[in-house]
């Protein structure tokens, strides 16, 4: 029996899982129009390789992975490309992004599918297939799996299959494990092979006993040495760092990933998609989406990527009084428009109503009760960070490890003063990033200017010297410039350059250096949210009288 460890903090809000977990996964339906974003993963957008008017088949690649941190996208049904352009997508800021629109023909004609002989192939080549079949993390972060399956310098000793699914309302992983455990474990076996991991552990929250039983039965059937472990149902126990701690006792260092302690974490849905991709050649063109909340019949849907989320809700049964849609769970999800398409990251579409999601009660001042500190899974002092963010004391906020906040929302949930704490931290983070960017830009400009002055000075001097030398040679058979003098000049230039470089290195700020692609994506995302948050912050952070 594996010894379990406890991560700090956490909460247990009402689960609301029963609404959607009882019914089997609904087979996919084909919408008239599929809107497929070219960027559904963290990293570079895929490059479109079809033109308007092209006929496409189901499973055909329509966007090619562009660069290392990227993944391909595919047509999820057969039809004709009618548009390549910007559409509202699932994004916290409601941004538009480049999408390929396909008018479906209802025939759902497949392209040729080629299984991949992953067992007898060079792992690097397998990873190429993983990328071209569009596999990305389905737990929500959508990091391209080809990169996570590359152990690189850091050997991976433990592979964790994440079946935590800790957010309320969401049951897509639960249903997947109940119905398709065999393929999930087949995917895990491929992962183990590529990562060369000694141990494979599946962590499943103990509120999913059917899923645990199904996974255990599948493991026995496959004869696959995987530990199926029930973990306590505590939000955010399904977070990468949290499940790593729970199952291995290893604490992921601040600013690092679990791979730094030799653990790689994959969502069970990713394992399933990987198995489908390599064993049958099926690219990632559908995923399971929980459609729940204020709907008539909450259920999990096998969903074609590109299906408008509003259509999913309509399929599950629209109800009067729906006040909006959330993509993801209530803790970390965000509002989306009904026309935004379901993407690889869409684990849940949650229809809101005033009853299920009441308006936030009036925000009162912080009374420093530290319920937030008790609930914080990062052991932060949210009440202090709130104070610093409000006062725009960003230096202090960083000193108190603002950037270790995972924005899980536990603090906001337990706050008796109903302060939307996470919003304050997002505001502070985006302000810090913006300032560092500005500073970087200013530094570069200053260095350029300094170098220009230096160059002008040098040229002037050189010219004068040249003239002087010329004059001297004219006068008599005077010796040419001594090599000593030339060396000294060269040295001076070199020294000045070194100084400039040292200066540059010295002023480089911390948080915008050495970013992982994940962080870069996060910055980009937050950047786009800034305007909105700023406006909001203006209202809340300034005078208290508006309370």
């Amino acid at each position, binding site marked *: 029996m594996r010894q379990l460890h406890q*991560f*700090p903090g956490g909460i247990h809000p*009402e689960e609301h899982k029963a609404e959607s977990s009882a019914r089997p996964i609904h087979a996919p339906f084909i919408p008239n129009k599929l809107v497929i974003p070219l960027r559904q993963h963290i990293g570079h957008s895929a490059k479109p390789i079809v033109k308007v008017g092209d006929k496409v088949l189901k499973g055909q690649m329509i966007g090619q992975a562009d660069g290392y941190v990227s993944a391909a996208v595919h047509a999820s049904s057969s039809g004709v490309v009618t548009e390549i352009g910007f559409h509202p997508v699932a994004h*916290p800021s409601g941004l538009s992004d480049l999408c390929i629109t396909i008018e479906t023909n209802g025939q759902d004609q497949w392209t040729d599918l080629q299984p991949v002989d992953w067992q007898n192939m060079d792992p690097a080549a397998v990873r190429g297939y993983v990328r071209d079949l569009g596999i990305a993390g389905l737990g929500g972060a959508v990091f391209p799996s080809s990169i996570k399956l590359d152990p690189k310098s850091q050997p991976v000793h433990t592979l964790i299959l994440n079946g935590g699914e800790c957010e309320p309302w969401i049951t897509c992983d639960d249903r997947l494990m109940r119905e398709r455990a065999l393929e999930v474990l087949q995917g895990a076996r491929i992962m183990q092979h590529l990562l060369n991991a000694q141990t494979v552990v599946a962590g499943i929250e103990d509120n999913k006993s059917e899923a645990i039983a199904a996974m255990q039965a599948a493991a026995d059937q496959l004869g696959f040495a995987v530990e199926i472990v029930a973990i306590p149902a505590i939000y955010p126990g399904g977070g990468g*760092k949290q499940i790593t701690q729970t199952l291995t006792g290893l*604490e*992921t*260092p*601040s*600013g*690092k990933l679990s791979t730094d302690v030799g653990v790689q974490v994959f969502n069970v849905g990713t394992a399933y998609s990987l198995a489908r991709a390599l064993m049958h050649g099926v690219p990632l063109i559908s995923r399971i989406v929980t459609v729940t909340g204020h709907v008539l019949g909450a259920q999990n849907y096998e969903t074609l990527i590109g299906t408008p989320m509003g259509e999913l809700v309509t399929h599950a049964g629209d109800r009067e009084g729906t006040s909006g849609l*959330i993509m993801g769970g*209530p*803790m970390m*999800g*965000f509002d989306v428009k009904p026309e935004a398409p379901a993407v690889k990251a869409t684990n849940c579409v949650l229809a*809101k109503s005033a009853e299920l*999601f*009441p*308006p*936030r*009660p009036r*925000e*009162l*001042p*912080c*009374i*420093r*009760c*530290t*319920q937030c*500190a008790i609930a914080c*899974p*990062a*052991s*932060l*002092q949210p*009440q*202090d960070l709130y104070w610093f963010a409000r006062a725009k004391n960003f230096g202090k906020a960083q000193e108190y*490890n603002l950037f*270790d906040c995972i924005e899980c*929302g536990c603090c*906001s*949930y337990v*706050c*008796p*003063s*109903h302060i*939307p704490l*996470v*919003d304050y931290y*997002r505001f502070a983070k985006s302000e810090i990033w913006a300032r560092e960017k500005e500073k970087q830009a200013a530094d570069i400009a200053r260095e350029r200017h300094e170098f220009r002055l230096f160059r002008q000075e040098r040229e002037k001097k050189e010219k004068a010297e040249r003239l002087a030398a010329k004059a001297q040679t004219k006068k008599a058979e005077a010796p040419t410039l001594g090599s000593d003098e030339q060396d000294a000049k060269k040295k001076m230039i070199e020294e000045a350059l070194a100084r400039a470089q040292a200066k540059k290195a010295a002023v480089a700020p911390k948080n915008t250096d050495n970013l992982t692609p994940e962080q870069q994506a996060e910055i980009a995302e937050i950047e786009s*949210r800034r305007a*909105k948050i700023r406006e*909001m912050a203006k*209202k*809340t952070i300034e005078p*208290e*009288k508006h*309370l």
Partner: protein
Amino acid sequence: MTASTHTLPSNTSVTRVMTLVLACLLPGVLVYAWQFGWGIVINLVWASLIALGIEALALKLRSYPVKPFLLDGSAVVTAWLLALSIPPLAPWWLTLVGMIFALGVAKHLYGGLGQNIFNPAMIGFAVLIISFPVQMTQWSAPLALAGHAPGFAESLSLIFTGALPEGVKLDAVISATPLDTVRTGLMQQHTLDEIHSASQIFGQIGGVGSEWITAAYLAGGIALWALRIVPWQVPVAFLAGIWLTAGFLHWFDIGRYAAPWFQIAMPSSMLGAFFIATDPVSGCTTPKGRLIFGLGAGFLTVIIRAFGGYPDGVAFSILLMNLCVPLIDAWTQPRVFGVAKKK
């Protein structure tokens, strides 16, 4: 304002927290009334009414919405804590002055709910004991010892008009507290044993009647901890601070320094431990910081009782520790997940 984080139905609020604090004080209040008569009940109601009045006025003057802040319950908690700290038959104006300083000055002049660096009730108490030492030492006699037990109407008129019931002298209704009795006795060069045998005010461990109030506060305090409203660190450290300091002094000179259990059995010790030192706004926020805060306040309480010029030390010790809160918090930051301990 639209927040980007979603709101799940919440069962917590400041009002709930404050209401639970009041509920957990209730056993203490009931025992108090049972042992000492109607005075405390009248005084609590009077203080609460003043609190609501001052709070509403202050909110209005500061152009805050009155209703949500009035309903948060914090002003009533302050009122109860002050009323429980001063003599139950204290004249009406004494409570009024105390509340003006507690809420008007210590709370609202510092920025209102969540902004005060000092515990408002203790500021009110400090002002009263410095300005009106005579009134502040005229405590009700326990009914078991009182020459006359004032009824409801008599208590009411005593508080609001100062008129004693016919034929009753002041000495029949008031008496010194056990701590005060010890203090006075020691000043007259008596030993603790002599003081104890000369007065009837002493009970099994603490004072007659008042030791039951202490027990009720303890019960309410434990409930408050069980409800996760107060952390265990502050009360445990506060009581440990009292016990250790008093124990050391008592061991040092058994004839001059009161026993540790006697000190803990004073109602002010238990009220301070669970209901005053635990005030989140003016207290420490880190677990280690709370231990230091509690220990320091307990230590200072005994020191002030033993060597200071006032009969009790709970208020001053907590105010002194309130001053140290930012420093203690900065020094005792817990380790953040994934971050190596700072040297």
